[in-house]
């Protein structure tokens, strides 16, 4: 535990400026209409920003390994959940890919069985 490490206040100011800069960058990139790739950029920037917050504001850089591994593990499992769930959505062969809507009067559902669709 090296909590005795004491930065100058300018240290935090610099971190804050970096965060503001990254936010502005992300904002400006979003205005340039990059297409589908913009999500990747903005998420990479978001990851960079949160890493900065974790390391410097939350002092993860000073913490022991046993503490630092905790958020890493959590992020890993978030990625796992997201990745495998999206794989399913993107690769499944049921159709249509997006659910059919059951309308109030049951008109929007193509009705293979020719039954009047349920009204509720």
């Amino acid at each position, binding site marked *: 535990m090296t909590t005795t490490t004491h930065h100058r206040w300018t240290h935090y100011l610099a971190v804050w400026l970096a965060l503001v800069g990254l936010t502005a960058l992300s904002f400006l990139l979003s205005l340039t209409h990059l297409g589908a790739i913009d999500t990747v950029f903005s998420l990479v920037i978001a990851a960079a920003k949160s890493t900065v917050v974790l390391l410097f504001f939350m002092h993860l850089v000073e913490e022991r390994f*046993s503490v630092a591994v905790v958020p890493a*593990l*959590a992020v890993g*499992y978030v990625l*796992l*959940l997201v990745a*495998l*769930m999206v*794989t*399913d*959505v*993107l*690769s*499944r*062969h*049921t159709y249509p890919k*997006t*659910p*059919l*809507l*059951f309308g109030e009067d049951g008109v929007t559902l193509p009705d293979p069985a020719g039954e009047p669709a349920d009204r509720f």
Partner: protein
Amino acid sequence: MTEQSRHREDIEAGDLFADVPPPPPPDYLRDGRGIRSWLLTTDHKRIALMFYAVIVAMLALGGIFALLLRTELLTPDQTIMTAPVYNRMFTLHGVTMVFLFMIPSIPATFGNFVLPIMLGAKDLAFPRLNLASFYVYLLGTGVTLAAMVWGGVDTGWTFYPPYSTSTESSVFPVVVGIFIVGVSSMMTAINFIVTTHTLRAKGMNWFRLPLFVWAMYATSVIILLATPVIGLSLGLVGADRLYHFGIFDARFGGDPVLFQHLFWFYSHPAVYIMILPAMGVISELVSTFSRKPPSSYDAIAMSSLGIAFVGFFGWGHHMFVAGMSELDAGIFGGLSMFVAIFSAIKVFTWTATLYRGRVAFNTPMLYFFWFLFLFTFGGMTGVAVATQSLDVHWHDTYFVVAHFHFIMVGGTITAFLGAAHYWFPKMFGRLYSERMGLLTSVSVFFGFLFTFVPQFLLGNAGMPRRYYSYPARFQWLNVVSTGGAYLLAGALLLTLINLLCALKWGRRAGPNPWGSHGYEWMTRAIPIKHNFETPPVITRGPYDYHLPEEMPHVDPQAR
């Protein structure tokens, strides 16, 4: 019994310090009297006992529900209850057993009791949080049970939408109750992890941790990372009922299969929440009763962590016929096998531990033996149902029911009973009747086999689960299963009676009746409030059976 004869018995049992001046502090059971000293205690051992009482009650409750279900299934059509009652009953059984009994069972009772002692600690890192987790658990249990009695829930413990969002039963309060119970288990889990990190006695490095501690540690990791997901998913189901968010509702463009992803992201690892503590218990039993270190300490310890880690990767094998993509089916089927590999490493290691040991055949060891068979068979059928094409036939049939009961009853409850016998002397300072213990253990095993082996066959024959009435050709297997269930229930009742009798009339046990080298046996016969009179210094591993047996080394001044 006169005072004198009890004193003599104390001396015979090795409790030599009873009357030696200066009087040692009273044991934890007598340290503070009155109901307040229990309800407001921060002593992990007393909290463990309070958990123990409630959890056994939950087991009994879940068992009664199971008996009612099995009775209903004696005949193909209505026997004792109607279909809506039956549907509520199996939901009650599932929710009670999974959320109220199985998940907190071993961690909250035996984990709470022995984990700090095994670490040489005075208590858990956050004793008040520990007490709070008990009351949060009580609150959650109360809410859940009240809601189930009040309106009942007929969704099954899986709460699949859109059924759970459209049924008229009172899903919302039950979901809230489960959420609260989840918070409780997270409190316990945080406590265990932090305690393991910070409160190890001097000289205890990570590779001197008892294997039970490793198992509890791995369990806690799963609880902490998985429980929030189920909390939120069930919360969404509840919100959907209240506000019609329709996040899983096809009428609003939602996809109910996504709920299944989220649900099993928790509930598949939850299986390991239930079985890992059992594995920890088994590791302790094997070593103690064969007087040998586990044939590979590292293999067991690391495979616990491995199960915790890889356990998150296999959730999709619950969804092979749910409209999931073939790609995901392939990925999940493959990833599921890794857990089985880690479990197999444990099974091999336990078996190899017996080799050239000095095996004492006590009741806990008998439970270990049952565990060995039931868990291996249950585990391998687990990989079998993760085999995609076979799962198409087996999914949601009684085969699956039989499989997970082999793991949960055959694995967890067997280990729970083993632990209940094994640590009984440490908890209460007395010995249960060994003969009755062996007898009840054998009956538990046969009751179990008669209950669940027919269910494998029923599943093969195609009987779906959650069936209130079934085609008549399934009947005789169901009758056998019901008979087995009664045998099992009777055996469990006898076990309880045996242990309760031992509380009052059991022989005094002494500090280390099994001759174990585990650290928890180095305390006095019944530990004192802060476990050790002087902080212990660990100079050997917990399984160093090549060293001579030692006296409890925590009372240097008494010796």
